[in-house]
């Protein structure tokens, strides 16, 4: 409760379960909290729904790279002004035929976790807990910030022969609507 009381000082937005669902990705819950170390942390529950085409590709060993893009910039920023936060969290989901497991591999930290089922892997993939976004003291307390989060399947990370058709066919457009809100630190 104490943590919650502190975090309320900034802003907390809870996404409703009817969150945006755009072609296979929806936000069940998103929250920004202020951590003990004065970092603003991101918590999110993201639900991935893979269609048959993507699922078939996954089962045939095609690695799927999902990218969570977190962006924060001043509301009144000039067009040439750099974003305050610009982070991309890239995770690869791949089926391993030898073990029969689904493997999640974090491209930033080279961590990998195996899962017995696809849904378990997707569940872990969609769970973001306490991801540090920005240190609060680096922000201008008088300014208003726009936070934008979107999640998508990275077509450019698909094997090269699949890319042209993936760009053309709608099955591979797995992406969320950008989730935006304004934040006054």
């Amino acid at each position: 409760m104490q943590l919650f009381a502190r975090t309320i000082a900034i802003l907390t937005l809870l996404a409703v379960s009817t969150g945006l669902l755009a072609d296979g990705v929806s936000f069940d819950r998103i929250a920004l909290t202020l951590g003990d170390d004065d970092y603003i942390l991101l918590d999110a529950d993201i639900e991935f729904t893979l269609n048959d085409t993507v699922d078939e590709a996954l089962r045939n060993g095609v690695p799927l790279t999902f990218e969570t893009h977190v962006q924060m910039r001043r509301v009144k920023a000039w067009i040439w002004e750099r974003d305050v936060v610009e982070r991309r969290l890239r995770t690869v989901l791949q089926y391993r035929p030898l073990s029969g497991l689904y493997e999640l591999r974090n491209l930033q930290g080279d961590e990998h976790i195996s899962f017995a089922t696809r849904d378990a892997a997707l569940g872990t993939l969609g769970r973001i807990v306490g991801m540090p976004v920005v240190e609060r003291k680096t922000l201008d307390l008088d300014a208003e910030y726009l936070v934008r989060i979107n999640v998508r399947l990275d077509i450019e990370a698909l094997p090269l022969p699949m890319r042209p058709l993936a760009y053309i066919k709608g099955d591979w457009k797995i992406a969320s609507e950008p989730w935006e809100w304004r934040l006054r630190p």
Partner: protein
Amino acid sequence: MNSRRFDMLAAGMLVVLLLAALHMISAAVQRSEDLGQWFMPLLLFSVIGLLLLFALVGWNLWQLLRDYRRRVAGSRLSARLSVMFLVLALMPVSVVYFYSIRFLSSGIDSWFDLQVDSAMEDALDLSKLSLDLHKRERLKLTENLLAAIEDTSQTAIALNINELRKTAGAVEMALFNVQGKVLALSHNNAEILLPTPPDSGMVQQVVGGQNYVGVASGTDGRLLVRCLALDRQERGIVLQAMYPVPESLSDLSQNVQNAYETYRTRAYMRSQIKFTFALSLSLVLLLGLFAAAWGAVFTARRLVQPISDIAEATRAVAEGDYDKQLPPPRVEDELGFLVSSFNAMTRRIARARNALEDSRRELLTQHNYLETVLAGLSSGVMALDSDGRIQTANRAADQIFGLSVSELESQPLQVLSERNEALKPFVDRISESLRRVMGEGRAEITLYRGTGRQVLLCRHAPLDIDAGETAGHVLVFDDITELVKAQRDAAWGEVARRLAHEIKNPLTPIQLSAERLRHKYLGKLPADDSKVLDRATHTIVQQVEAMKAMVNDFSDYAKPTRLQVEPVQVDALLSEVLGLYEGGSQHVTTRLESPGLMIEADPVRLRQVFHNLIKNALEASGASGRVVVSSCVGEEEGNGFVEIAVSDNGPGFDPDLLGQVFEPYVTSKTKGTGLGLAIVKRIVAEHGGLVHAQNPPEGGGRIVVRLPAMSGRREFDVDQDAVGGVAGHAR
């Protein structure tokens, strides 16, 4: 830079860029790990570039079609050549494309077949079997380890886990409670503080009573066997142990797995691979096709350009533009030779045209010169062709004949007599002379025109073109009426002068002798005789005086004059002369309307003119006559003149003699010398004026004198029609 060169450079650069892009696409396909990220941008660039190239080709083809429809010179040949080049380029490219696609498709298909599929599956199964054995051993070991733990306390177990791990040779060993909470961990890497988390499915399986064993990848890439075993002594713990797979088995299994994954992925992507290769090949084909199409149009145009230029220039030459020159050829080939020859030909034609033009201009100049000379001639000149048709005539001919002869061009000479009956003697005589005389001929022909007698002196000569060939005749004729008249006047003058000289000499002695007789014997003779003597001598003296006056008139007429010219104001002079007639029995009216107008004249001679005219009018109108003297100013062809008219209300001039009233001794009066009007005409002519007599419709007679004004004075000829041609005046 002209548009064609710009087109060429743009297309060339575009083709080069597209070739580079396609080459990089090919490299990206082959080395997708390094260059894969450039694949889509390059593909997009290639598509846009091809669209641009297509637009360029379309624009060129549209231009070609437009020129073809407009029938621009060379467009049809360009179109034919373009189509031919295009077909020649398209056929091999299409064949290569067709078979490349087929080979590509069958080649890719050949990568995958059932045997390979089966072999790969078998290899994977074999690996799985090998691992399964190892997995079962490790699971058994884990279960035994867990069963061997006798401590009931979770804490005590946790304290011994490190020893257990080392005993079992595991990489990691962790103890959880059934809720999944970590109770203890032992890892061969002391820095790792968290166990590898089992997923919820694994935990549920174990809690459900079935222990889990599976293969996982370690951080170093080696395979690990994960065992999850539930404690059978109901202590509520789950032991997870991670055992390393023997290196050789791990490596072999990894290799099999990687090969299997690659194969499965490729097999899955078979259609996409075909599509990507076909797409790349199609891009290359389109590039080749568009480049060939553009090259075909460009080459055809470039080849046909000199021919088009020649065709255009030939058309220009056909339309008379002989100065047309084509740009000099860049290459000395057959077309270059054709262009050079064409330029040489047009230069020669232009030179010939210029020479012809010069000749024509010279001929025109000569013609104009001749026309001017002929127009300036007082002699009439007329050219007849060999058939006697009128070819040309000068202005003097028009004036002499009183009709426009130049309008009768190409008509026979006889048309002159048809137009004017009075010209018949001329036509007959000339026709006769032309028939009779082969060479030059000469004739003096008298015509009786409405204006009086007209004497023409005619000469004719053949127009020779070549020896023995005659193109016609040239007629030259002069109106010598005035000349004849002048000769006659001169003869009269000579006669008068001689008569005056011969007669005047004895008159004075006669007069003196008569006066002496009278003086000497008048007083001595008887009264009767004296009366006779007085009457006789008086008659002699009177008649001698009359004869003297007559002889003086003769003398005046015959005497060569020398004018003392000075500016004279006409109205003033007229007023002065008319002043002498004021108070007479006859009524003289003046209407002077040229105040201040000056002429150059001899006032004495002009006064004589006015005296003669007024006196003549007074004598014609009788005792109760009325004479009107008027003056007015006029202008003709830019030259000013003054016109003095003396009218009377007498019987007028005899119409038959109207044209001869100014000739000497043509008179109807009982007294006078008959030289008055002849002297008037002579003095007027000497002043550059003209005089004519007329009978106005209101009755009486009128004589009009026209004298040039000082400004723009010109030498007037005596109006032949008015003076010499009008019938005589008899009063």
